[in-house]
């Protein structure tokens, strides 16, 4: 279980997270939606502990990563896997070394066992025979999938996906959606998915949360969100250019 309690984050003058509260239950897939630049990626980085909040706390299974000693922190981090928005592959390493990174670094498994696992994870995301390539020679969508293979390689219990289907063709996007569902059914992992793709959101989500103005303004099952009375949520999920979100922005630009 992940408990996010009132976290605030500033980047200089920019108050990105303004008190986010969210609880993610065991074995649940939560989809986070929100406008571009509202802080979704920042929120994921807080959960995995790359960024630290100025206020508030994040507890995973009742424990806060920040208060752990360094050695334990690393062990704890291995239970989380994250797919970065831009894939963030190590460009000096081959695909095999990228995907198997945590195994090479943190286990004493033999080269063959690791290669075997790497091949298996690449298979899960629909890729094969690319282990010896460098990331620079992959297409954008392939990079994304290699990033996903790397995130799941250490068999984490919590997986964070930052826009897993953006930039993929519709077929591969659905392969990834299926993968997210399968991971949850078979391994009972907690998944947190950030996406702009509402089809994918409805398909994989147990619950959907909307981040707006640095706060979570609504959480609910896909049906609850679809039938939400909140005009902001309605405007977002129907993808309309007119509504309270754009009105607010217009007012702000006029004030300037």
């Amino acid at each position, binding site marked *: 279980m992940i408990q996010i309690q009132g976290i605030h984050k500033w980047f200089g003058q920019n108050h990105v997270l303004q008190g986010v509260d969210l609880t993610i239950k065991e074995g649940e897939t939560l989809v986070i939606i929100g406008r571009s630049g509202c802080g979704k990626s920042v929120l994921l*980085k807080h959960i*995995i*502990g*790359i960024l630290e909040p100025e206020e508030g706390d994040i507890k995973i299974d009742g424990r806060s990563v920040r208060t752990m000693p360094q050695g334990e*922190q*690393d*062990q704890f*981090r*291995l239970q*989380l*896997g*994250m797919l*970065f*928005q*831009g894939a*963030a*592959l*190590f*460009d000096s390493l081959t695909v095999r070394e990228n995907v198997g*990174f*945590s195994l090479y*670094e*943190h286990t004493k498994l033999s080269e063959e066992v690791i290669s075997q696992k790497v091949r298996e994870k690449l298979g899960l995301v629909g890729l094969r025979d690319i282990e010896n390539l460098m990331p620079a020679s992959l297409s954008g969508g392939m990079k994304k999938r290699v990033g996903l293979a*790397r995130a799941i390689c*250490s068999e984490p219990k919590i997986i964070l996906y930052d826009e897993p289907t953006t930039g993929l063709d519709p077929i591969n996007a659905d392969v990834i959606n299926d993968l997210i569902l399968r991971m949850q059914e078979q391994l009972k992992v907690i998944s947190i998915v950030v996406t702009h793709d509402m089809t994918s959101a409805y398909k994989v989500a147990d619950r959907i949360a909307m981040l707006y103005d640095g706060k979570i303004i609504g959480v609910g099952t896909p049906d609850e969100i679809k039938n939400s009375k909140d005009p902001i949520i309605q405007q977002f999920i129907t993808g309309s250019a007119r509504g309270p979100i754009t009105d607010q922005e217009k007012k702000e630009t006029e004030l300037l």
Partner: protein
Amino acid sequence: MTHWQNMKKWVSVRSWLKEFGRLSLDIFQGAGGIALLFRDTCSLLLEGKIRWKATISQMNKIGVTSLPLVFLTALFTGMVLALQSAYQLRLFAAEKFTSDLISVSLCRELGPVLTAMVVAGRVGASIAAELGTMKVTEQIDALKALATNPIRYLVIPRFIAALFMLFILTIYADCIGMFGGYLISVFKLGMSSHMYIKRGIDALVVKDVVTGLIKAFFFGGFISIVGCYFGFNARGGAEGVGRATMLAVVVSLILVISSDGLFSAIFYFF
């Protein structure tokens, strides 16, 4: 209108103060950040678990590939030093001291400082650019997410490699510089080969060599830590990486030159 505003910016005391304040903040923040990175690096180093494979490959990158450049710099410095000092010493009919002068000034000063400057330009820049690119493409974040300490993974191999390689490059530069001086003294100034070598070596005392090598050690540390610091703190895209690279070279040069002054003062008294 905008022209007037630009003018105003330059006359207003307030904007001067603002600039000054920002500059001081930047300087102190940088100094503090570099010191903290140095502390973290040392404490991780003491914990052990050094990645030797990466360290060796960095040694190759930092040391071996710098050999040609250091060779050229040292050779010509030695030659020029021989010519210029012979020109002055001739006034006192003391040309035979040329080789004393070359070996002492190379070992104490020029060897370590010139090597450090060449390496700062070449290696400091490449470290900052490499880590800066990793930072802006989120690869550093990815390292943390994969439970790997970026300092252990990236900084320590570069730090150790730079320490050892500057040490070795400095010895190499000392030798090459003396060889350059030899070429000029023997073939141009008509000194005997035996005389040049004998005088050159007799003039050196242990302190000359040791102080030069101590400096080299420190310069290696400065260059690698400063390069890593600015790389880690790059932000934005290509422009940010360019800025980080520039700052890394400038700051390591400043550190090398100013600490050289400090060391010379200290070694002068002890």
